[in-house]
């Protein structure tokens, strides 16, 4: 092949690539090539949509499920524009919004009730949260469990300086528990069950914080740019998710079975995590107790909870006071929820 013909061929390939790219750009106006979900790998209701591909079907575009380990990873993934929609905890989401990451809360699919708990060692006579003073307590760093633990210490007026708090990832907590290095741990399933099987028992659950006015939840968060480009897709996402919640509520055990099989985890673990969460419906979420309907959003439960969380993160030194917005309402977008409930 002469150099001349080689160039000709290259030019032809380049032209072809360009035209293909053009078609893609034209096509991308209504449906993206793929939608990227960030998921934590745990048993959650939306996994039902991963199994039967109902999200892919309703979007008319394939969904790529991108795994993450902690909420911190989600923030980095959003900053790098590597994900479009994420389901993760309230405290990392609040941190991201305060740090002016271009993201929006579109829904609060799960309120943490009993899925995250404080487990104490029986042999150390830890029978209530008051017994934590003088003990070593582990928590997963930058998680809703850490937030719950710090709040539990505060609302129960424990002397924090007398408690040794150790940041440990759940798997490391299991190792430290076995060695006898920690006396208690605030974490989620399946780890809570492992501790209970190994000399531990429950002394506090996140739901108990609700009576003190603290709501700890997981939220669906979108990348603003993505949602503005594909608003209908976001609406479809919320509708499809609601269908999955309905499917779960109709048959909790069957759904847990499906999810456990898909994730290759024990059925009991999947069931206990799934039943440990509360699932406000899309309609309920539009009430002032949760996100509000736009007009009521500034005084809504979640706007308040987000602000509380941010203030708390400032108090423990993870966020700068100057970073915390006056209100979190501008970062809560209920237009998609409203469209999702109007048939």
């Amino acid at each position, binding site marked *: 092949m002469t150099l001349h013909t080689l160039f000709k061929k290259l030019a032809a390939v380049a032209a072809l690539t360009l035209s293909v790219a053009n078609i893609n750009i034209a096509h991308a106006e209504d449906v993206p090539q793929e939608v990227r979900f960030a998921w934590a790998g745990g048993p959650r209701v939306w996994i039902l949509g991963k199994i039967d591909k109902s999200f892919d079907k309703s979007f008319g575009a394939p969904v790529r499920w991108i795994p993450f380990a902690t909420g911190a990873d989600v923030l980095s993934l959003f900053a790098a524009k590597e994900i479009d929609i994420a389901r993760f905890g309230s405290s990392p989401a609040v941190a991201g919004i305060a740090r002016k990451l271009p993201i929006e809360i579109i829904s609060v699919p799960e309120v943490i009730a009993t899925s995250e708990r404080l487990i104490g060692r029986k042999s150390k006579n830890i029978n209530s949260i008051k017994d934590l003073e003088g003990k070593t307590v582990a928590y997963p760093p930058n998680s809703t469990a850490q937030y719950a633990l710090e709040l539990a210490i505060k609302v129960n007026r424990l002397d924090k300086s007398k408690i040794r708090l150790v940041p440990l990832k759940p798997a490391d907590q299991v190792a430290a528990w076995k*060695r006898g290095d920690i006396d208690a741990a605030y974490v989620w399933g399946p780890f809570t069950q492992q501790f209970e099987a190994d000399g531990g028992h429950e002394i506090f659950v996140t739901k108990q914080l609700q009576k003190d006015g603290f709501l700890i939840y997981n939220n669906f968060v979108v990348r603003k740019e993505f949602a503005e480009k594909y608003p209908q897709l976001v609406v479809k996402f919320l509708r499809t998710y609601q269908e999955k919640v309905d499917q779960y509520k109709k048959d909790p055990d069957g759904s847990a079975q499906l999810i456990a099989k898909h994730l290759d985890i024990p059925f009991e673990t999947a069931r206990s995590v799934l039943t440990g969460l509360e699932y406000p419906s899309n309609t309920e979420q539009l009430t002032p107790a949760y996100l509000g309907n736009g007009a009521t959003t500034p005084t809504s439960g979640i706007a308040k909870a987000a602000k509380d969380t941010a203030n708390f993160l400032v108090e423990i030194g993870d966020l700068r006071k100057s970073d915390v917005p006056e209100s979190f309402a501008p970062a809560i977008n209920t237009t998609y929820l409203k469209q999702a409930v109007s048939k």
Partner: protein
Amino acid sequence: MSNSVNTRSQPGLSTTQRVAVSTGAVALVLGVWQLSGTLKWIDPLLLPPPTEIFQTTVDILADGYRQVSLWQHIWVSVLRATVAFAAAIATGIPLGLAMGLSQPVSAVLEPFVQFLRPLPKIALIPLTVVWFGIDEGSKFFLIYISCFLSVVVSAAAAAVGVSKNRIRAAQTLGANRYQVFTRVVLPNALPEIFTGVRLSIGIGWTSLIAAEMVAANSGLGWMVINAGTYLRTDVVMLGILLLGGIGYLFDLALVLLQRTFVPWAGRDA
């Protein structure tokens, strides 16, 4: 002779010119970096400009980070590292020399050292909790092990590298084994051992981050990781600057020690 890189003074740049060029280069980078933030070329969240990092430094000096003062973070990290470095040097050099001087010792230890040395030490994190728990032991171990192995290898190489002719010459002159070691092997191996220690301490300082990923509540490595989880990129950058600066100071201290104790380094006849 410059400190960090052993470039011989070449004709063309005087020391003053060299300093001027280096200062200019740093100033240029800082200037472009600041402009990138001021002119909004890059989102300050992704790359906080120097002024923001300066402001953060002022804030943290005043209030500390996570209820721990900045000095405390620096002190904790330097202490962890220094203790581990000292232990690695105190155990690594004798072991390395023994490997370099004795074939049987070398044959026994070589496979282990060569297996462990290139192993990424981060892979050991899950084991450190299981083995050493959540206290200082696990942090010490991670820094120690990454530093120790390269000290051993470089000390062994230095001992092997001592000219056989010199040893034979000393033996011919009637030196016993002890004298050969103290008068020939050690003086000839020391410059290379120092270089090895400098490299090892660089590696050890790097693994500080890995060490402070395990159950830490203070320290510069922990500060960087924790700030990263809340997207506090300004604190992350501050931590990186401090880690780099302190690593540089460690190296400078070693160069000074080298000049004091091994003034003959690099002047081999």
